[in-house]
């Protein structure tokens, strides 16, 4: 098994999908000749031609909106938003159209599409390139929201998302595109949506995270271990569907939990996690659940972003607070 970076895993999966299924079409800004600004689609246009890997005008709403029409024609579009923060320019198409087209048409027009979107902080990008907006899309019934944390999962979850008959927002941690590197099987495989991954077992507390925050959680768990605590990490992999059973079991096993994400705190996905934990595992709790998230302020300029994106230290503080409660 070869090691791959997350970006390599995504690129190879897109190539596999284009090769396997003629209905698959990749579209977005700079995805063709340039191979994507992060090189996620590098070489694909050369291999599959301009009609299947399509450079689009700089217009997010029509990138997503034309994908709705492509799906109505029987194709499987994979539109790319260059950054999730620019998804707001297409939000009306995602929320008002993609997510509810199957419902509106009572199944006449299913929306098998995967909207790929990089996001995430601490890479010194200009404004709106880093925002973690996933909660807005979780609150959009009809969409699925998938957030891989490893290269292996990026490949398996993307392959599954492309096969899934429902529309999927596939969020890729741009900080991890090259930093996240792990063993990825060569062959075609899928990872089911809605099955969380136990990254690390722990008996004192579990950190629940997804995407690049899983890396932060692992480091915090490691540091906590040095302080004598046994801290586990649960990677949700997808927010919709949510693996409620894994969440319940992980919390029930140790009675303490910290939820962690890069998006801002209030009505962030952590709020949903805490609510679900109290519904499912209230009587097992031995301490209030810790919530570590970005502040309720806009994503800041680069010189202060490390103070904004949840750090290992902040997660450790939350772990200690929960363990000492």
């Amino acid at each position, binding site marked *: 098994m070869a090691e791959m970076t997350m970006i390599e895993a995504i690129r190879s999966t897109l190539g596999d999908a284009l090769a396997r299924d003629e209905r698959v*079409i990749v579209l977005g800004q700079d995805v063709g000749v340039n191979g994507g600004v992060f090189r996620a689609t590098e070489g694909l246009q050369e291999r599959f031609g301009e*009609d299947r890997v399509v450079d*689009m*005008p700089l*217009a997010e*709403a*029509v990138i*997503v*909106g*034309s*994908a*709705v*029409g*492509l*799906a*109505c*024609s*029987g*194709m499987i*579009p994979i539109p790319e938003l260059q950054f999730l923060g620019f998804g707001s320019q297409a939000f*009306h*198409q995602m929320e*008002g*159209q993609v997510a*509810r087209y*199957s*419902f*509106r*048409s*009572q*199944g*006449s*027009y*299913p929306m098998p599409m995967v909207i790929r979107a990089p996001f995430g902080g601490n890479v010194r990008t200009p404004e709106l390139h880093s925002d973690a907006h996933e909660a807005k899309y979780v609150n959009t*019934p*009809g969409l*699925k929201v998938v957030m891989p944390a490893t290269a292996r999962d990026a490949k398996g979850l993307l392959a599954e998302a492309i096969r*899934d*008959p*429902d529309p999927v927002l596939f969020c890729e941690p741009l900080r991890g595109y090259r930093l996240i590197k792990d063993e990825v099987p060569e062959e075609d495989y899928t990872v089911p949506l*809605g099955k969380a991954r136990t990254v690390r077992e722990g008996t004192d507390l579990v950190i629940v995270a997804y995407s690049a925050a899983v890396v932060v959680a692992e480091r915090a768990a490691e540091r906590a271990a040095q302080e004598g605590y046994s801290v586990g990490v649960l990677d949700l992999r997808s927010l*919709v*569907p*949510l693996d*409620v059973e894994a969440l319940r079991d992980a919390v029930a096993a140790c009675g303490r939990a910290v939820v962690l994400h890069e998006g801002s705190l209030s009505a962030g996905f952590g709020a949903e996690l805490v609510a679900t934990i109290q519904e499912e595992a209230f009587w097992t709790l031995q301490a209030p659940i810790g919530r570590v998230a970005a502040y309720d302020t806009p994503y800041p300029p680069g010189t202060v972003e490390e103070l904004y994106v949840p750090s290992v230290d902040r997660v450790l503080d939350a772990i200690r607070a929960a363990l000492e409660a």
Partner: protein
Amino acid sequence: MSAASTVEIPEPLRLLAPDGTLAEGHVPALDGDALLDAWRAMLRSRVCDERCFSLQRQGRLGTFSPVNGEEAAVVGSAWALDPARDWIVPQYRELPAMLRLGYRLAQAMQYYTGNPAGSQMDADVNVLPFQISLAAQLPHAVGLAWGLRHQGSDAVVCTYFGDGASSEGDAHEALNLAGVRRAPVVFVLKNNGWAISTPVRKQTAATSFAARAAGYGMAGELVDGNDLFAMHDACSRAVARARTGEGPTLIEARTYRMGPHNTSDDPTRYVDPVELEERRALDPVERVRRYLTAEGLIDEASEQRLVEELQAEVDAAFAEAQASPSPGSEALFDHVYARPPGRLAGQRATAAAEEAG
């Protein structure tokens, strides 16, 4: 013309005068049974408008937007299509076009009475559902046309929007992409003068929407939208261009909304009655009536019989919609996902239990 305008705006294409006479030398391509079908569709639309208004006032129908005044624009364009292969991507004021492609009147009545089945298309009916988010359908039309062509079809997609929706960003993005991809789309912009209460002069400083076509690298045509033959003629050319790979066309159908925006709207608050009377004199249905009467194809008695037949058709459709089973709580969940997240199973059960009382 406003001083700011730098584009010379031609007069709208007109082939049938308000008095029902043809432009000199014009031989309509829409003739014979197709013409009588189109006439029937225009009258059906008017009968349907009246019936739906009455039903809404009785509390038996939900919100309804009449076609009243735009019959020639909708029917003329739809009759330029080949129902066997072409597509309609509607907004919500184009029911006669949807019916032409096989959407059923009873489904429309289901839609207007809040039954989700009203937007489920029968197999081989090339129609997308009503669109309430204005201009959002235009990117869909472009993607649909692009996808069909990509798969080797020579189908054409006809989509509709209005002067109000033309201000939306989606209209710009869709027209631009259609030009870039030479997508086989006919964009019918029905300039009916109003976006609810906002007159077209507050929608744009330009004197022509058709002139925008040049800015998107596509053909554009300004047409008398109350002229069935002009609409059919311009749209037929647009369909032929699209089918042969010459790309999209933007057609501005200059028409007039003779009724309210919808059943909740009171246009007496903002429409000048003098203007309304002037525009009523250009009524598209009356124009075709005069032509067909002069041609000896219809008379008062035959029209009376036709209207009665259409009233019965509309009443039967409404009765069929009323008779269709009223959906239960499963309708909240069905078709939201093909593979629903596990959480929805519990929510579905909760809703069913609540429904059962």
